[in-house]
């Protein structure tokens, strides 16, 4: 029988806060104290937007933001997310807190879910600042596409965070984790980034949801697969 099936899955008592939520709140509490990752990710995202706004003169090329803007947004999201993903497990490695988490009497999947949730909230918080700034730089009407764009960003960010959380945990015990994480994550995340770019392009072009709902669906499936993989495999990831 596979180990994950043999393992006893413990459920938190009804009166207790679910461990995943406890871990998520702890991570956000730490980030709120220092704002290290948020500041770094935000300014990194800002710089990327700034560089792109100067590098491409859309109007003289006869292009609208909807033609290349999706790529710009997803390059920004992808690279800025790496900062938080890396930090989420580096803080656990610092004083061997990862071992303390592994010793807690909860299902290891709770650790994955807590970290995933905190990473997702962080990525979305950065995007909440980046999207209005990109609208300012590139002069598109964010209000007109806010809702469908939010859906695309949330679904794809969830997929990216699920995969990233799993890979960040795998790479954190290695000596060059900061190098290994992008090397593992970027190739594996290519599908969700491509679907995100395509869906965002259609969204920015003012097309209805029916034009890109299959892309959002694919991204949701991608996220669900890696979230389930994280839940099932995290026991092995935490083990020394």
């Amino acid at each position, binding site marked *: 029988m596979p180990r994950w099936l043999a393992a006893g899955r413990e459920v938190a008592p009804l009166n207790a*806060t679910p461990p995943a939520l*406890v871990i998520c709140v702890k991570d956000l509490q*730490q980030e709120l*104290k220092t704002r290290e990752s948020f500041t770094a990710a935000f300014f990194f995202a800002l710089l990327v937007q700034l560089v792109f706004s100067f590098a491409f003169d859309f109007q003289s090329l006869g292009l609208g933001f909807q033609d290349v803007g999706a790529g710009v947004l997803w390059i920004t999201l992808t690279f800025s997310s790496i900062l938080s993903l890396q930090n989420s497990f580096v803080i656990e490695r610092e004083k061997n807190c990862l*071992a303390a988490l592994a*010793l807690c009497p*909860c299902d290891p999947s709770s650790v994955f879910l807590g970290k995933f949730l905190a990473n997702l909230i962080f990525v979305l918080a950065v995007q909440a600042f980046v999207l209005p700034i990109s609208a300012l730089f590139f002069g598109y009407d964010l209000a007109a596409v806010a809702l469908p764009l939010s859906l695309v960003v949330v679904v794809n960010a969830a997929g990216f965070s699920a995969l990233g959380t799993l890979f960040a945990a795998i790479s954190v015990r290695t000596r060059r984790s900061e190098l290994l994480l992008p090397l593992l994550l970027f190739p594996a995340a290519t599908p969700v980034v491509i679907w995100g770019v395509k869906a965002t392009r259609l969204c920015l072009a003012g097309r209805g949801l029916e034009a890109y709902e299959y892309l959002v669906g694919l991204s949701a499936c991608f996220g669900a697969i890696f979230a389930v993989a994280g839940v099932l495999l995290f026991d092995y990831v935490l083990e020394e």
Partner: protein
Amino acid sequence: MSAPSLVSTRNLEFRFGARPVLRGLNLDLHRGESLAVFGSNGAGKTTLLRILATLLRPTGGEAFLDEVPLSARAQRSHLRRRIGFLSHQSMLYERLTARQNLHFYARMYGVDNRARRCAELLEMVELGGREDDPVEEFSKGMQQRLALARALVHDPELVLLDEPFSGLDPRASSRLGTLLQDLPRRGKAVLFTSHHLEMGLGVAHRVAILSGGSFAFDSPRESTSLEGLVAAYASLAGRGA
């Protein structure tokens, strides 16, 4: 003693690659009993504690808590609830305050009356006035004391402490010594490693020297003199490590 051991090992083995660290180690520790384990660097003290804490899996033999194998995955959460582990590293979040750290671990262990329990522990380790300071502002000794509070937050039955006296000033060492004597009185089994022979002998019920991957010396305190222990350590420590 006729009562069953709380924690026991049978022919416990552990290898790092090809290098054997523990070789056929047998141990029995009862409720209300404390054991100080001495040994040179690399003798396997930390490895033994990590196996008993369920962080490492032995490559041979088995360790038991109340006769339940520690490798039993289905029981692991239940077993872990009964074990408190103080590591070399503090396992504390440096950006969070002392109180936030204890509350976090108390929540993770599902401790009832968290606020009261955390306040008691902070008083016990004499950090009562510093509970809202970030851990990164604490000295090494203060972090060690808070780490001890963290290890005890869920009132474990088996307390495993890896060099608990390291980084503590004489006063804090003395307080810890008192605590290590008090825990067995409350029915806990305590196993700690140390390089301080005198301190270890002064507080533990039994002393043991880990050498060559197993206990080369294991003796009750009352039949062990400090001179005898020092002589045994000098002849045994480092042998076959």
